[in-house]
């Protein structure tokens, strides 16, 4: 081995190319599962790194650089790609070799990028990707001539079928062996003239190859006649959304119940085996309850992301964004906000993470700020408890379930207020900023299960580690606040009443009295800060349900139906539509916006809205019920 085994000394190869050139599929084929996803330092651009072996058993470190349309760096993604190629990104080494990936069916556009990349003076290999698709379109590209015209080795690849990967590995070996990286690289300046010049150059190359005018009618064009049809298009979109929601909410149900019972049995097992101590309480009420409250949402998140990835891989998602652009534009958002907001119905955390696909910083920020207003699944246990206790289970208007109608109303309430907030932001903080859409609608592809599986696995990992660690540590802190100090000798009330959380809750009940919350609710809101659904368990504790009650919600229903007024119940429901009671969401916002400014603004505006809306609800209901 000529090079040391330490990963810092490995040769670095970077995949560079336009978005939608099949770069990530090629990355997956080369590295398999030996890859990790993180962020570039200081920015929220995804950094994908992996390893592979060449033919000569040389271990190579591979980067999948963010997709770029040009080397102008107009988006954070493109800035990262440009900085890495210049060797100017702190903490990142300059690549020893570029694998420039192009879509063989779209040479006209993608070859311009190759010409631009050539200016960096880094050794390069061209991967002519999707060459099977090109062949099917009757497009045979003479790789020898193309290689001569460009002055770099050209390899035909078909990432989804692994074809050509062997050739690519061989070429990488060859080029790494002969061409050392020059110490100084030119930093090309790209102007309208260079683009026009490169464009001419591409035309010249393509005409020598005899593939200049290859604008045959594609299968995608046929599909788009229906999918983007003014009438059929929106209906297809609605059907898709309906299927996704049904799968997320109904399909995930048995899995969530299964996970819940596993968590409960572990908790019960530990509770029975361990002696009564602080340690037992910390393990059972802090650690297990904390981890369980996160894990229970995993089925929903997996199912939702499965559909999102399928729609993304197939090429449908950008088309959905295209159709919704006008509608979302009316409140100052763009079509691109659609995917993150859709994800937020399962959980705002992956939704906020998904805003990375929005290139415009203003659109991205607005989307992040309203994402928590989408009704996430953590609100459901609270909604279910209050609705079961206060809304009679009868049918109105010829068969519509009243309880279901109230639930739907809460969902719609969230969406409408999100639109309102977006519209207000458009009028105030984000005024007068117009920008372009320029969204690519890539050719349709059959989704490749391997890529879906890798994508799903990465998201699950991110969710579990990021949210898991944050929520777990917060749950432990809240457990501490709720159990210390222990009640004095001869105390009659529940233990939590005497703890720090209880003391804070009682003080807070002064603040919450105008919106109808009693001290029991106020106390339950404290542990409920970590995650919304925890409030149900906390209410159980406050109302002194015996420990080990299996169905907390079922036992609570008659209790609160008796002791709360309808006005209090309605006020709490409305509170939950707005209140940002999810520390992991705020942590995600802090991470995605690189600072405390936006999570603090979010915290204040959402609590403000919650308080005002609950105040109105409480007093209107009071007046209406003759209180």
């Amino acid at each position: 081995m000529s090079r040391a085994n330490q990963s810092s000394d490995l040769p670095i190869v970077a995949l560079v190319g336009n978005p939608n050139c099949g770069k990530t599929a090629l990355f997956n084929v080369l590295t398999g599962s030996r890859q990790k996803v993180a962020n570039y330092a200081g920015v929220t651009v995804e950094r994908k790194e992996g390893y592979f072996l060449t033919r000569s058993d040389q271990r190579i470190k591979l980067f999948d650089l963010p997709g770029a349309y040009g080397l102008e760096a107009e988006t954070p993604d493109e800035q990262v790609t440009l900085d890495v190629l210049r060797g100017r990104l702190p903490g990142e080494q300059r690549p020893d070799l570029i694998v420039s990936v192009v879509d063989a069916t779209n040479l006209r556009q993608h070859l311009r990028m190759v010409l631009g990349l050539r200016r960096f003076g880094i050794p390069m290999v061209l991967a002519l990707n999707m060459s099977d698709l090109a062949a099917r379109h009757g497009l045979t590209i003479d790789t020898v001539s193309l290689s001569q015209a460009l002055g770099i080795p050209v390899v035909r690849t078909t990432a989804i079928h692994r074809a050509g990967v062997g050739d690519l590995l061989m070429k990488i070996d060859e080029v790494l062996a002969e061409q050392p990286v020059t110490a100084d690289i030119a930093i090309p300046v790209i102007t309208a003239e260079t683009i026009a010049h490169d464009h001419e150059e591409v035309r010249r190359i393509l005409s020598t190859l005899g593939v200049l005018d290859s604008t045959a009618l594609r299968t995608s064009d046929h599909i788009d006649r229906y999918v983007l049809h003014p009438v059929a298009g929106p209906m297809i979109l609605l059907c898709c959304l309906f299927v996704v929601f049904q799968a997320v909410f109904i399909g995930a149900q048995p899995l969530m119940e299964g996970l819940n019972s596993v968590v409960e049995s572990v908790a019960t097992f530990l509770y029975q085996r361990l002696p009564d101590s602080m340690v037992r309480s910390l393990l059972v009420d802090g650690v297990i309850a904390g981890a369980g409250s996160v894990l229970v949402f995993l089925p929903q998140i997996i199912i939702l992301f499965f559909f999102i990835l399928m729609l993304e891989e197939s090429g449908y998602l950008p088309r959905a964004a295209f159709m919704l652009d006008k509608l979302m534009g009316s409140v100052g958002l763009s079509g691109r906000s659609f995917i993150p907001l859709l994800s937020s119905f399962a959980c705002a955390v992956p939704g906020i993470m998904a805003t990375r696909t929005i290139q415009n910083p203003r659109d991205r920020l607005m989307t992040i700020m309203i994402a928590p207003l989408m009704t996430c699944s953590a609100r459901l246990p609270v909604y279910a408890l209050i609705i079961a206790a206060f809304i009679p289970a009868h049918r109105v208007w010829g068969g519509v379930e009243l309880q279901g109608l109230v639930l739907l109303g809460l969902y719609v309430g969230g969406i409408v207020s999100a639109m309102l907030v977006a519209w207000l932001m458009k009028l105030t903080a984000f005024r007068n900023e117009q920008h372009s859409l320029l969204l690519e609608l890539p050719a349709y592809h059959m989704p490749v299960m391997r890529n879906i599986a890798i994508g799903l696995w990465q998201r699950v990992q991110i969710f579990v580690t990021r949210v898991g660690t944050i929520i777990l540590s917060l749950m432990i802190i809240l457990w501490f606040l709720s159990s210390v100090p222990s009640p004095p000798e001869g105390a009659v009330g529940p233990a939590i009443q005497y703890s720090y959380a209880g003391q804070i809750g009682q003080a807070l009940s002064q603040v919450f009295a105008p919106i109808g919350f009693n001290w029991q609710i106020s106390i339950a809101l404290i542990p409920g800060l970590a995650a919304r659904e925890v409030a149900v368990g906390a209410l159980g504790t406050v109302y002194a349900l015996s420990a080990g009650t299996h169905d907390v919600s079922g036992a609570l229903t008659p209790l609160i139906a008796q002791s709360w007024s309808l006005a209090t119940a309605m006020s709490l429901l409305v509170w939950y539509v707005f209140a940002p009671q999810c520390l992991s969401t705020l942590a995600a916002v802090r991470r995605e916006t690189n600072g405390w400014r936006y999570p603090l603004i979010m915290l204040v505006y959402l609590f403000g809205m919650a308080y005002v809306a609950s105040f109105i609800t409480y007093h209107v209901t009071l007046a209406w019920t003759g209180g």
Partner: protein
Amino acid sequence: MPVSLIDLPLQQLAVIREVKSVAGGADATALRRMAEIGFLPGEIVKVVARIPGGDPIAVRVASSTFALRRREASSVQVQVLQPNE
């Protein structure tokens, strides 16, 4: 006679004559980006879909399809291609 991309009938092939800044059209950044993604003189375009109201539109340029808002589309001057051309 050149027309703006906004007025090009659906599925009608046309050739780009000029991409320029017009009142209420694309700004400098958008114009540069449009050149990068292939909106350049001499390229063949067609409008493949329009959202009711005409904003945004989906445009096929060379071998790619892009969604453009009205503003950007208004900056693209095209010449309709007759079937025999």
